[in-house]
């Protein structure tokens, strides 16, 4: 078998590559559009035909490999549609081919605008390993948040830097390219945001990065910003290794979205697999294979031990042998399915059983699928991966809010109850904040719903960036959000929420005309003092109302939440 050292490096390398590729996709689609337009007007241009064929063929192969399956399939479809004509003379296109290709190219473009980011996130094979070591995270976090912003317009620099800082980034500004280069030599930033135009030339920013990258071992992660939006400059930016390209006036929320994506490696948890097999040789073979693909595994060689393991190590999937002494895989799956907590975990039987009737029987007992032994390692990995991906996607859809990606109402209530019982058990404080954007209806009415949505997203981004990993954020509905602060008392939570309130009020949001600003009001309740989550959230809601009545843009703590434990840990 292949060896497999340095997992985090592979992950980092793949993520960086994937991010880089994602940024190149729009330019690739644009190239396809341009070739197609030219070919439509001059059908006999055989060179253009070959160019377009190569462009689509290449994108079909690369996009899929990078996990952008829809883009890959659309590109493939264009390639095939074009080939329909290969055998005929090239003097003219049949109307059918023209309309087929046109439609596909349009779909590619639409996808480009709307969908491919989401698809990228879906690509979980890149995510399975993550260096979760807590001790490293603080330092890494700080470096991950260091941005260099380079622009010769000092006013613009200051406004921009201030706004990006509100999202928790450390921004260092430069008006001069040489000073910027010296700074990079001293301390590399996580990301460079570079203006395109300087007095040295109309594309001096791009050229400078290009030259620096040629002399460097690794490419500087760069987002370009520009006053012009023409395709050729865009192309130059892509060629210089630019990962993003934004035209002024800048939409700060979008820029920050992109910064988040590029600097913040989404901390998807490693896939967790439990393998049940009475033969340790068999289970360790499967375990090793899956570990090599970055998954976490637990082997169970005593079938009846499974239930204990599930409590400690709730997996994404259970792989089980069928014939085992003591308790068969079928009985095991029946038992698991009778337990509410585990009812949705996929169960896959791994067995040399080839009899279809017996396989069917296994499924009817609550198994989800059947894999026949001997199984090829790569097939095992891909079969497990695809089931987990789907399972997680379904869970995510069910538990999160589509616009902001935060937990939804149902899930956040569930989490509140969980955290509350933990707080009771461990005798630790727990704070609950409920907040509501002030005059949000006015935002929607005056600037339109898209602008309103951007405000909601920017609040979600701000919270994701600034809160600790274990704080839990949710969108309660409309413009109402909640945060659960484990092991935190009311006063500490108020301090945090006040900082966030100020930061949020400094973010300028853009409408079609002028920038505008939003604020929020917040109510906080904290355990001890409440028996259940409903009491806690009712109380937070009540003081949120007081905050609104008291003039808005403030954080109010419920009076009987101020007691706390005598030894309560403030942060």
């Amino acid at each position, binding site marked *: 078998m292949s060896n497999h050292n340095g997992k985090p490096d592979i992950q980092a390398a793949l993520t960086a590559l994937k991010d880089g590729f994602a940024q190149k996709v729009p330019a690739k689609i644009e190239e396809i559009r341009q070739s197609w337009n030219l070919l439509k007007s001059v059908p006999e241009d055989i060179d253009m035909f070959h160019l377009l064929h190569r462009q689509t*063929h290449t994108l079909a192969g690369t996009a899929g*490999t990078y996990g952008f399956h829809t883009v890959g399939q659309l590109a493939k479809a264009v390639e095939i549609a074009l080939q329909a004509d290969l055998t005929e003379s090239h003097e003219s296109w049949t109307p059918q081919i023209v309309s087929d290709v046109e439609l596909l190219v349009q779909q590619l473009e639409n996808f480009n605008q709307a969908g491919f980011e989401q698809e990228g996130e879906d690509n979980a094979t890149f995510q399975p390993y993550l260096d979760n070591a807590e001790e490293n995270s603080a330092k890494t976090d700080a470096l991950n948040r260091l941005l260099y912003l380079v622009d010769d317009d000092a006013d613009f620099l200051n406004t921009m830097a201030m706004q990006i800082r509100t999202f928790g980034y450390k921004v260092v500004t430069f008006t001069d390219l040489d000073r910027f280069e010296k700074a990079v030599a001293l301390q590399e930033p996580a990301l460079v945001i570079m203006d395109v135009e300087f007095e040295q030339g109309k594309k001096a920013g791009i050229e400078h990065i290009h030259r620096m990258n040629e002399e460097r071992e690794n490419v500087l992660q760069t987002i370009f910003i520009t006053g012009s939006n023409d395709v050729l400059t865009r192309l130059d930016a892509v060629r210089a290794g630019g990962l993003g390209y934004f035209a002024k006036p800048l939409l700060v929320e979008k820029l920050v979205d992109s910064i988040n994506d590029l600097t913040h490696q989404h901390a998807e948890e490693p896939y967790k697999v439990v393998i049940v097999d009475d033969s340790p040789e068999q289970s360790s073979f499967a375990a090793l294979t899956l570990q090599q693909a970055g998954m976490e595994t637990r082997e169970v060689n005593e079938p009846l031990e499974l239930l204990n393991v599930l409590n400690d190590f709730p997996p994404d999937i259970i792989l089980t042998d069928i014939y085992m002494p003591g308790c068969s895989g079928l009985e095991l799956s029946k038992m698991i399915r009778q337990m509410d907590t585990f009812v949705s975990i996929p169960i896959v039987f791994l067995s040399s059983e080839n009899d279809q009737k017996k396989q069917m029987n296994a499924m009817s007992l609550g198994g989800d699928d059947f894999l026949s032994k001997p199984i090829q390692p*790569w097939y095992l*990995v891909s079969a497990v991966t695809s089931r987990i991906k789907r399972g997680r996607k379904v869970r995510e859809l069910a538990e999160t809010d589509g616009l902001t990606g935060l937990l939804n109402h149902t899930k956040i209530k569930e989490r509140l109850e969980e955290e509350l019982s933990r707080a009771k058990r461990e005798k630790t404080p727990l704070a609950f904040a409920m907040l509501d954007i002030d005059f949000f209806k006015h935002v929607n009415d005056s600037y339109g719903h898209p602008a309103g949505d951007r405000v909601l997203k920017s609040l979600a981004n701000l919270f994701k960036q600034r809160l600790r990993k274990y704080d839990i954020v949710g969108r309660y509905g409309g413009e109402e959000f909640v945060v659960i602060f484990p092991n935190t008392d009311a006063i500490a939570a108020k301090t945090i929420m006040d900082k966030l309130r100020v930061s949020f009020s400094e973010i300028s949001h853009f409408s079609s005309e002028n920038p505008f600003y939003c604020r929020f009001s917040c109510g906080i309740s904290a355990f001890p003092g409440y028996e259940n989550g409903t009491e806690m959230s009712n109380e937070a809601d009540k003081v949120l109302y007081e905050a609104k009545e008291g003039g808005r843009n403030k954080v109010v703590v419920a009076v009987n939440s101020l007691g706390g434990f005598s030894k309560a840990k403030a942060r």
Partner: protein
Amino acid sequence: MQELERILYAEDETDIQQIALIALEMVGGYTLKTCNTGLEAVAEIENFKPQLLLFDVMMPDMDGPTALAKIREIDAYKDTPAIFMTAKVQPNEVKGYLDMGAVDVIAKPFEPMTLAAQVQEIWAKVQT
């Protein structure tokens, strides 16, 4: 069984090259020599002395099948296992590649995390 270490890899598309390098060098632990065209692969072979050839089919200058035919003319490499990587994996197309002297075909797009395992398997199959 002989350990697979050295793979001569020809692919013109940088995006694919990069990800395949990670998949085969970092995940698989192999040593790769990457070429951008079939012509380069032919030029590199004596120098690099690969145990396995992994070729894209469509490449400028010289495509994968032509490069393989050229390499087969060299005595020392007339039996070196070759794998084509291609998006064209219809049964008749695969048969065509096998007839050209490839031992197997890997479909594009491929799964980066399992590419090494796929190659290893083909290698093991050829060794027995």
